[in-house]
C-alpha cells in the first residue's frame, strides 16, 4: 500500500498536468519548441560532421565556453596601451609612487644609497575573476625613452574583482638607490598569462623637474630603440595633464562606443597642445637607431616670459617607425613628463 500511494499520487499529478496541457499548455510548448527548429538550421547541422572528432578520450586540450570561463583583467595606468588607443598620457603615473618612511617623495629628487619603497596601485577590470597571487615586477631605468632597465624584483598581491574591497590593491617593494647620484624611472609590470587584456599591464613613471633660467629649462635624456630591427624614433611633445575625475552622472553611459568618444574628447592625443606661449625644442626630434642603441637628446622648454611663475608641464612621447609590424602612426615606445618651474625672477 505504501508503494502504491506515491504511484497514484504521481499519476494524479500527471493527469492534472495533462488537463492543463490539453486545454492551452500545448500551444505554449509548441511555440517554445519552434525556435529549436531554427537552431538546427542555423547552428547545429554544420557541427554534426565534427561530432565524432570531438569524442576522443585522449585529447590534451579542450575549449571551454566564455560563459563559464573566467579571466581577470589586472591593469595599471599603462601609457603605451592608452597611446595605442589614441589617448594623450602623462608619465607622472597616478598608479606608481615612491615613499620614504611612509611619506611620498618625487621620483626626480631621490638621494643616492637610500632606502625607498616603490608602491604600485593595481586595478582589476573584470567583475567576476580575481587575480590571486598576482606577480608585480618592478624595473628601474635611467631617465629616458625606450632605454633598457634593471629588474628590481617581483612581489605578489591578491587582487579582487572590480568594486570589491581588494580592488585596487597595492604592491610594494623596498629599493635602495645606487651609491652614485642619478635620475631614475620606475616601471611596474603585472604578470598574468591568461589575461582578458594583456596590453594594459605595463605602467611607467618617468618625470623630471628643472628650474627656468632666462627663461629656459633644459632636460637631458636618453632615447633608445627597444626593438631588434633598425627603426626611426620620432619625438612628439604635448601639454596633457591628467584632469581631476569628474563628478558621477545620474545615469552613466555604459555603451562602449559612446564611452570611447567621450574618452577621446577629454583625453584625445591631438587635443592637448603644449601650453600657450611655450616653445619646445627637441634636439634631435628624430633618430634612426639600431636595435638596442641609445643616444642623448636635449629638450629645451622656453617660457613665454622671463618672469614666469609657476610650473609648466610638457610630455615628450616616442614613436617608432619603419618596421613592417609598425602602425602607420608609429608604435608608442615610451615618454617622459617634464616640469619647468619658474619663480618670477628671470
Amino acid at each position, binding site marked *: 500500500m505504501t508503494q502504491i500511494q506515491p504511484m497514484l499520487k504521481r499519476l494524479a499529478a500527471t493527469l492534472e498536468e*495533462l488537463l492543463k496541457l*490539453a486545454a492551452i499548455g*500545448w500551444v505554449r510548448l*509548441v511555440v517554445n519548441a519552434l525556435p*529549436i527548429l531554427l537552431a538546427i538550421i542555423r547552428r*547545429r547541422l554544420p557541427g554534426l560532421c565534427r561530432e565524432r572528432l570531438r569524442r576522443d578520450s585522449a585529447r590534451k586540450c579542450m575549449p571551454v565556453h566564455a560563459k*563559464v570561463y573566467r579571466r581577470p583583467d589586472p591593469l595599471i595606468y599603462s601609457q603605451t596601451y592608452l597611446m595605442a588607443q589614441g589617448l594623450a598620457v602623462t608619465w607622472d603615473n597616478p598608479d606608481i609612487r615612491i615613499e620614504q618612511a611612509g611619506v611620498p617623495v618625487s621620483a626626480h629628487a631621490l638621494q643616492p644609497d637610500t632606502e625607498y619603497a616603490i608602491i604600485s596601485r593595481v586595478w582589476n577590470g573584470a567583475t567576476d575573476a580575481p587575480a590571486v*597571487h598576482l606577480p608585480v615586477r618592478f624595473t628601474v631605468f635611467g631617465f629616458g625613452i625606450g632605454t633598457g632597465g634593471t629588474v628590481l624584483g617581483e612581489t605578489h598581491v591578491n587582487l579582487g574583482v572590480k568594486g570589491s574591497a581588494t580592488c585596487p590593491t597595492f604592491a610594494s617593494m623596498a629599493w635602495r638607490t645606487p651609491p652614485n647620484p642619478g635620475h631614475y624611472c620606475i616601471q611596474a609590470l603585472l604578470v598574468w598569462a591568461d589575461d582578458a587584456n594583456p596590453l594594459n599591464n605595463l605602467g611607467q613613471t618617468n618625470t623630471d623637474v628643472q628650474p627656468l633660467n632666462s627663461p629656459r629649462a633644459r632636460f637631458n635624456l636618453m632615447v633608445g630603440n627597444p626593438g631588434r630591427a633598425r627603426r626611426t624614433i620620432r619625438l612628439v611633445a604635448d601639454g596633457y595633464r591628467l584632469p581631476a*575625475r569628474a563628478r*558621477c552622472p545620474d545615469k552613466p553611459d555604459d555603451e562602449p562606443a559612446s564611452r570611447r568618444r567621450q574618452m577621446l574628447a577629454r583625453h584625445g592625443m591631438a587635443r592637448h597642445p603644449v601650453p600657450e606661449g611655450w616653445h619646445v625644442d627637441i634636439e634631435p626630434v628624430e633618430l634612426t637607431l639600431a636595435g638596442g642603441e641609445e643616444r642623448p637628446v636635449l629638450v629645451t622648454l622656453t617660457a613665454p616670459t622671463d618672469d614666469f611663475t609657476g610650473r609648466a608641464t610638457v610630455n615628450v612621447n616616442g614613436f617608432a617607425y619603419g618596421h613592417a609590424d609598425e602602425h602607420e602612426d608609429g608604435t608608442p615606445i615610451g615618454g617622459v613628463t617634464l616640469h619647468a618651474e619658474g619663480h618670477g625672477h628671470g
Partner: protein
Amino acid sequence: MVEQCKFCTPSSQFEPISLTAGVITTVLGLIAALFGGGAVGAAIALIGGYATLSEVCRWLRGGKLLCIQKDACAIGLVYGLEPVGFEKPFPTNIDNDYAINIVLAPHFPSETETTLQQGPQGHFIAPQPVLQDHGLGWVGYKGGHYQNRKSWTLHCEFEGNRPCTFCDAMKAAVAVAIVAAVICAIPIFGWIACAIAGAIAAVVLVVMLLAGWLGADDGDPSNHAVNPGDGDLHVPDATGQGGDYVVVTGDWVYDAGHDGWNEFHPCRTVQKIQGAPYWAQGNSDAALRDFKLVLNDWCGAIKEAATPLTTDAQGRPEHRWQFHPELDGCVPDDAPEPPR
C-alpha cells in the same frame, strides 16, 4: 554553455526514479486500444507515456543530483577532459554535458584515494552522510584517461541542455498526440478529422523529437564560432608537465545517475591559476597547512566577487569605468572634492 536548466535536489525532496505507474498505464492503454478500446485506449496509453516521460525528465533535469552544497569552490590540476558524448552511446547521450576531472591540490596524481580524501579538499571526493540516508552506493571517480593514466579526481560537469530541450519538445509532441486522440474519440468528428489530427500529431512528434535532440546546445564551444572570451584547458603531457591548475565553482552533488561519486554539477565557473603550483605539493603537514591558505585566498576572493556588497558596488557609477578609473571613472556626489 547554456542557461542552467538542471538544479540539484535537496536531500529532503530526493526520490529515486520510478517509472512503474507510467509504464503500467501505457501498457493498459495499449491493451485497451488493441482489444477494441480504439481512441480511448490510445489516449490512456499516451497519458501513461506522458507520465513516464515526465518522470524521466524530472530525473534528468536534476532529480538525480542530490545536493550536498551549493556554490562550492575547489582547486586542482586538470587531469582529464571529457568532451560532449564521451563514453555515452545513444541514447545515453541525451546527457550532453562536457566535463573536466581535476586532481585536488596540493596532492600529486599518484596519491591514493584515502590520502586524497584526507587532504584539505578531500571531503569533495569522499562519501558524505547524506548518501546513507538514501541508501546510495559509493565507488569514487577515477578519471584521467590521457595515455592510460588515471587518478582519483573531482569530476566537474559543464552543463548542456539536451535533457531540457528534448523533454520540452517531447512533452509538446505527446500533448498534441493526446489532443488528436481526444478528437478521434469524439464520434461527431468522424474518421477524416481523426486522420488529419493523427497525421498532424505524427508530424509534430517526429519534428519535435528531432528538434529536441539536435537543437540542444552542448555548450561546447568547439561546436560554435570561436568567442574571444572562450578559454581552453590542458592536461599534463607525457612527462607530467603543462597541465593547467584551475579554481572551479559549482554545486557539489552526488549524481545518482552514475555508479556512485560526488561531483560539481553544474560547474559554473573555471579559472586558470597563474604560476601554479606556487604552493608546496604532496601530503606533508607543511604542504597541507600552506595550501589551506591558498584555498582561502582563492575561494575567498571568488566568494567576495559574488557578494551583494560587491555586485551592488559594481553597479554604482564610480565602478563602471572601462579604461581606467582616472580616465573614465568618476567621483560619487557624496564624496569630498578629489585632491589634484
